[in-house]
């Protein structure tokens, strides 16, 4: 008897619209208003992201992680969620953030270096941005465990990137999730680049989706630039979670059309051709063609959306830039429920030193890239 080597099978990609907006699968039953809403959020997210890049280049915003090209993944996923569900994000999810009810100015404030940008409006079940890669995945499992334990309504959607799947917290989080059989969906936006490291140097696995099998739950491999497919895939996974069937890992294959962050120069490590190829797979373009073919998208409507987006973005910039100055207290007062004596002393010392300041140093200016 010979030894048989196990060969993991990579899943087929799930797609509804091809890159030219043609239906290649059964058309989902989504009403016109909802389709329009989907398009609006994708469009609004892209415009808000474009504006942020301008602000950064003008020295009005710090380093941030653009989302261009990943709108379908984020909007498709978050649109499948219900209000009672919980979103546990990483840091490249502006689209999902906006759709879930975080005002745009919060996001701008955060990347303008203002901690008040982390504030989540009451009643919005979102957690703040998590910068250290993959560290939010175990949190999502804990939140989902809490929901399960209390027999509460709602499930958890946790978003992370392809780089995160190399981290220990990805493994630990998914392993816990499988063992505890919690109502969580692990949603990977595989944009194929972790800064300059391409997918094939990140893992020897054909797909991320197939990693789910090792944790004892299913994976879904979906075209992340196809908003309809992402929406259907996420809906299915959320439904499983809601029915107590446990976690699902979704890999949404997408592409970061822009830079890792505004401090990054992707021309150093990837080719024009590759970028061109993915620009043709643009998620907004293909969805627009589909909506246009259905008679939903029109030039007039597009003009309306442009106007509406511009107004909202201008308002958000205005709000973020006119936020009142921080007080010294804000740096200290939320360290603990009750401030220990030595922290009070440190706070008083800082206040005094600012009041009595004699020597001003040169301010650091925001520039492209890291210094």
């Amino acid at each position, binding site marked *: 008897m010979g030894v048989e080597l196990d060969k993991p099978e990579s899943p087929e990609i799930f797609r509804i619209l091809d890159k030219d907006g043609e239906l290649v699968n059964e058309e989902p039953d989504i009403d016109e208003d909802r389709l329009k809403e989907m398009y609006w959020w994708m469009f609004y997210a892209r415009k808000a992201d474009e504006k942020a890049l301008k602000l950064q280049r003008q020295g009005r915003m710090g380093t941030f992680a653009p989302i261009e090209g990943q709108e379908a993944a984020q909007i498709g996923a978050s649109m499948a969620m219900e209000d009672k569900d919980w979103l546990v994000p990483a840091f490249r999810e502006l689209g999902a953030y906006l759709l879930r009810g975080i005002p745009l100015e919060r996001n701008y404030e955060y990347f303008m270096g203002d*901690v008040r940008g*982390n504030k989540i409006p009451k009643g919005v079940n979102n*957690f703040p941005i998590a910068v250290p890669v993959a560290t939010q995945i*175990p949190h999502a*499992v*804990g939140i989902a465990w809490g929901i399960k334990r209390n027999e509460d309504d709602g499930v958890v959607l946790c978003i992370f990137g392809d780089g995160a799947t190399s981290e220990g917290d990805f493994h630990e989080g998914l392993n816990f999730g499988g063992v505890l059989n919690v109502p969580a969906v692990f949603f990977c936006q595989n944009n194929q680049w972790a800064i300059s490291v391409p997918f094939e140097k990140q893992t020897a696995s054909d797909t991320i989706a197939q990693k789910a099998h090792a944790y004892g739950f299913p994976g879904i491999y979906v075209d992340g630039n196809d908003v309809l497919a992402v929406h259907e895939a996420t809906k299915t996974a959320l439904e499983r979670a809601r029915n107590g069937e446990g976690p699902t890992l979704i890999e949404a294959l997408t592409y970061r059309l822009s830079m890792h962050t505004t401090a990054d120069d992707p021309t150093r490590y990837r080719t024009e051709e590759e970028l061109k190829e993915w620009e043709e797979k643009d998620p907004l373009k293909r969805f627009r063609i589909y909506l246009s073919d259905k008679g939903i998208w029109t030039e007039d409507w597009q003009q309306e959306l442009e106007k509406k987006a511009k107004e909202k973005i201008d308002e958000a910039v205005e709000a973020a830039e006119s936020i009142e100055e921080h007080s010294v207290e804000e740096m200290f007062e*939320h360290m603990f*429920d009750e401030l220990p004596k030595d922290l009070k002393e440190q706070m008083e010392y800082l206040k005094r030193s600012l009041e009595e300041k004699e020597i001003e140093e040169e301010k650091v200016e925001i520039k492209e890239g890291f210094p």
Partner: protein
Amino acid sequence: MTEVNMVGAINDALHNEMEDDEDVMVLGEDVAENEGVFRVTEGLLDKFGEKRVRDTPLAESGIVGVSIGLALYGMKPVAEIQFMGFMWPAVDQLSSHASRYRNRSLGQYNVPMVLRSPYGGGVKALEHHSESFESVLAHIPGLKVVIPSTPKDAKGLLISSIRDPDPVVFLEPKKLYRAFKQEIPDGSYTEEIGKANVVKEGEDITLVGWGAMIPKIVKAADHVADEGVSVEVIDLRTIYPYDEETVHESVRKTGRLIVVQEAPRTLGFASEIVARAVDKEMLSLKSPPLRATGFDVPFPLYKMEDWAIPDVDRIVKKIREAIEW
């Protein structure tokens, strides 16, 4: 009143809080079925069931990360890391999230979790089972670090830690787990976090320590009493927040200070205590504040562990050095 050792006292605190508060959960490696490798979680699974007492996969970062999620959702997880030497993978979660969540969300979210861990040497344990890096945790803004040295304090401080709305790392000196018994009150009582205890009053010199160093300091104090030196002994009980007032009040009285710590010397919490005393009590000091500490070497395998930990002899010599300065 019941007479118990430290393991019994901690177990009692866990039973007490789990009975009082439905949201308290216990999780970690071997804490349920096996009732903890030191039997600290005895009887919990039987009484409260798997919904609240849960064996987890062997993954320290996962244990702490999942606990943070539970705490964010409103639970009160009491997680265990089996030995402090294995806590390092979880330090990322502690420093990147548990300690920062309240601050970075401007008070919108808090993380009411407790991370328990047996720590320190002196029990002839295997390599990596005797570490004490409480100073590293105290250096992370936003964490409370509590270390009891008696059964009575262990129960009262653990109850306070579980009720605390912020993350507390609760370090249990395993050398003292079964070292002695003490009468402790039945039912609920709390000891204040951030409040040191003057174990023994004295006039000539202040000795500050925590955890398994306290019995050694008391022995050293008894020893030099025969030489006519009166030692005040302070058990810090909490590393952070640091009870500077109690220590400085004592230093103002005695004019001399020695800090005893099991951990390596460089940048240990003893250094902070000495720096603060110098900052604020320079004119009260009759001699330089000294430290009796471990060495800047990895905690050795057990044939050399008695050299690594400050002993009564080294503490006595430090006392004489300060007195004779």
